[in-house]
């Protein structure tokens, strides 16, 4: 109860002290404001970039495995070259794999080729053509915006039909309805049966909408007879992701007849490889960025400490009187700690008020940023801690003053 009263009194005294030296308090607060603004902006930028990255790779799907010859993230150039010498993955392997897997929801073999496409006088010179089965749609989770997806019959029979990505659809059919028309892929004629939903880009580099999906059998008949494929597998249960991966690995080893003492001659790629790589890359950058911006907060803290020392020196007499009247060490300590903390938290609040519109401006013009509640909380906490840490030494010094000496101080 007494402590509570002391704290309340401490607040009153610090508020008076802050108001008594307006210029001094404003400058000290300004130091903290600068520090918190920069740290908050840096945090928002890092958070925003992380979010944008996760968003841009979400097209890969968290529960989808990509069985390919090479690893997406080869550690070294030598390793990558070695992976290039592995046997290509062929269609029969995908069929055998589909029979053996129990933990997979869908298995889709996918083969790629890049070809020019044409409709009347509209051309598109390099479009990615995906040869796959009807299973591709549940695996990738890509929806259909118009028309329909491939059916199992079309897929098995290798019908000359195709589903367009939005970019191809708008390029080839600026004024017409694509569904029902026939386009030329390479030299072959295909009927458009549907249009995919807009996918955006992968990592901002590679458009996922500049593609056409056709049945794999037709792909083999028209373009590549015995194509190298990648196998996309969607796990049945998200909770059994690791089991599904292990089952997939064992099944694939059996299918490719890898001897027990040999390493895998294929790679199972997953979205989280990108995430790991990204975090490894940005972890250092974020650390350096926060360190550099943290320095300015540190400088602000030093400013507070300095001014608190001055304040203690100036108010030695006041401290002496308070102690003579029966104030405990704790009371004095609290008084100065509260004063420093008040300045810092006030600075933190002002800084958030400045950083918030700045974040919006940066998002508009430069890079994606997100100002989350976590960042706000952390910023306030950091400013409070800065205040307590930088106020502690001066407050300690004040609390330990001998009342007699303090009273004698002229």
């Amino acid at each position: 109860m007494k402590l509570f009263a002391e704290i309340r009194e401490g607040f009153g005294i610090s508020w008076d002290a802050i108001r008594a030296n307006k210029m001094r308090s404003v400058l000290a607060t300004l130091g903290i404001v600068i520090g918190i603004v920069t740290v908050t902006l840096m945090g928002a930028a890092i958070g925003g970039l992380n979010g944008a990255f996760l968003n841009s790779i979400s097209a890969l799907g968290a529960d989808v495995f990509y069985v390919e010859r090479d690893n997406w993230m080869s550690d070294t150039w030598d390793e990558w070259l070695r992976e290039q010498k592995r046997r290509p993955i062929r269609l029969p392997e995908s069929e055998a794999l589909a029979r053996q897997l129990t933990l997979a929801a869908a298995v889709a073999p996918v083969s790629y080729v890049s070809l020019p496409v044409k409709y009347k006088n509209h051309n598109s010179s390099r479009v990615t053509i995906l040869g796959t089965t009807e299973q591709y749609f549940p695996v990738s989770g890509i929806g259909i915006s118009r028309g329909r997806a491939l059916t199992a019959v079309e897929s098995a029979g290798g019908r000359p039909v195709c589903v367009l990505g939005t970019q191809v659809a708008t390029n080839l059919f600026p004024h017409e309805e694509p569904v029902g028309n026939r386009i030329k892929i390479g030299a072959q004629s295909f009927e458009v049966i549907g249009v995919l939903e807009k996918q955006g880009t992968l990592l901002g580099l590679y458009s996922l909408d500049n593609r056409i999906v056709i049945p794999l059998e037709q792909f083999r008949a028209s373009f590549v007879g015995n194509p190298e494929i990648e196998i996309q597998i969607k796990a049945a249960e998200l909770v059994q992701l690791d089991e599904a991966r292990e089952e997939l690995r064992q099944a694939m080893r059996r299918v490719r007849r890898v001897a027990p003492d040999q390493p895998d001659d294929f790679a199972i790629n997953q979205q989280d490889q990108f995430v790991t790589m990204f975090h490894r890359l940005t972890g250092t950058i974020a650390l350096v960025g926060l360190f550099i911006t943290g320095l300015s907060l540190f400088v602000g803290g030093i400013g507070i400490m300095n001014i608190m020392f001055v304040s203690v020196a100036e108010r030695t007499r006041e401290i002496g009187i308070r102690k003579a009247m029966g104030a405990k060490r704790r009371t004095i300590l609290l008084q100065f700690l509260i004063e420093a903390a008040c300045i810092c938290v006030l600075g933190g609040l002002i800084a958030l008020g400045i950083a918030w519109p700045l974040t919006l401006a940066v998002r508009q013009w430069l890079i994606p940023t997100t100002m989350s509640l976590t960042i706000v909380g952390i910023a306030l906490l950091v400013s409070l801690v800065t205040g307590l840490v930088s106020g502690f030494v001066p407050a300690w010094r004040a609390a330990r003053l001998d009342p007699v000496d303090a009273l004698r101080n002229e």
Partner: protein
Amino acid sequence: MKLQKPTRLFAESGESCSMALSALAAHKLRSVLTLLGVLIGVFSIIVVMTTMRALKANIEREISQLGGQTFAVQKWPALYFGGSEGFEKYWRRRDIGLAQARLVERKATLAGSVGIEANLWGGQVETRYQKTPPSVQLLGETPGSFPARNWSLAAGRAVSETDVENARDVCVLGDGLAKTVFPFGSPVGEHLKINGVSYTVAGVLAPKGGAVNGEQDKFAVIPITTALNRFGRVRSLTILVQARDAASYDDTVEQVRGILRVARKVPPRADDDFELFSNNSLIAQFNSFTRAVRIGVSVVSSIALLAAGIGIMNIMLVSVTERTREIGIRRAVGAKKRNILTQFIVEAVVLCEIGGVIGVLLGIGSGNIAARYLKVPPVIPFDWVILGLMICSVVGVVFGTYPAWKAANLDPIESLRYE
């Protein structure tokens, strides 16, 4: 005695300095804390700049693979930042074939030497001592490439015109590769296998200076005709052209561009359908791509200095209030406003400079530790050291002026009366 004006100014600033130092010494804790702020501000600038300079030097050396006054012509851009969509343009260009390259070689009268190069990516080199991973870079070259690439021979001979004409199975090894696959004795005249095909070693290149990691000279050179026979003719070649001297460089570039435009039937006014670049243009291109990043980093790292400046202003204001009496006495015995102003500004500047010097030293030290960790040679960014110290003085002047002005404008009588 009335002193000459410059002498008086000198005496005055000398006095200000000594007064500033004694004032700082009087409040040790306060001075140290204030100084610490500036120190950290300068430290953050210098440490970032030192690290960036070290990295930049490293990147520039990586980029600079051509000899002096040399430029290269190829179908692909040498540096490309952007999506695969923008790259279509380069895909659609026609290859630069051997015939076009030979034409340039024949017609470029201004050029000192013209080399033709085919980059064959990775190969596996095998000798009786050692077998490398399949990541050794293979280059098909003509004799003219050697001066253009700035290669000099440590032993043996270069690829000769006869080698090219007869598509001989000879090779010249980079220093790093030679040391790996022939650990004992001279490789010249020895045999080795590249991707299973036997070649005779004709020569070894001298190591390139300044390489930190041994990776740089890990390549093998074979005659271009051999390269095209073995690795396929459907590829775009690089033409390396070395001008005779710096004066004729621009003319040479224009001549080669003209020859190629005619050979490739580029219509007038249309853009070149090939890329021309030199070391300098590559470095300039790289710098323009990274400019935004560098400016951002400079700004962020100097923010701490701003916070430090505010701290200085605050403490100088306190200092002025405390020393009101001293100011009053100085004014009473004849000090002008200007003298007081100088006294306090000099005090702020001295404070900043002490912090600045320590910050610079620490910054260079830490930056070079970072450089060492990133395996790049150490550097001292003298321009940033000077700039950093100048910024310190500016901070001192800017943030010291208001308190000093306040001190100078105190009423002498009032300040003498101040308790």
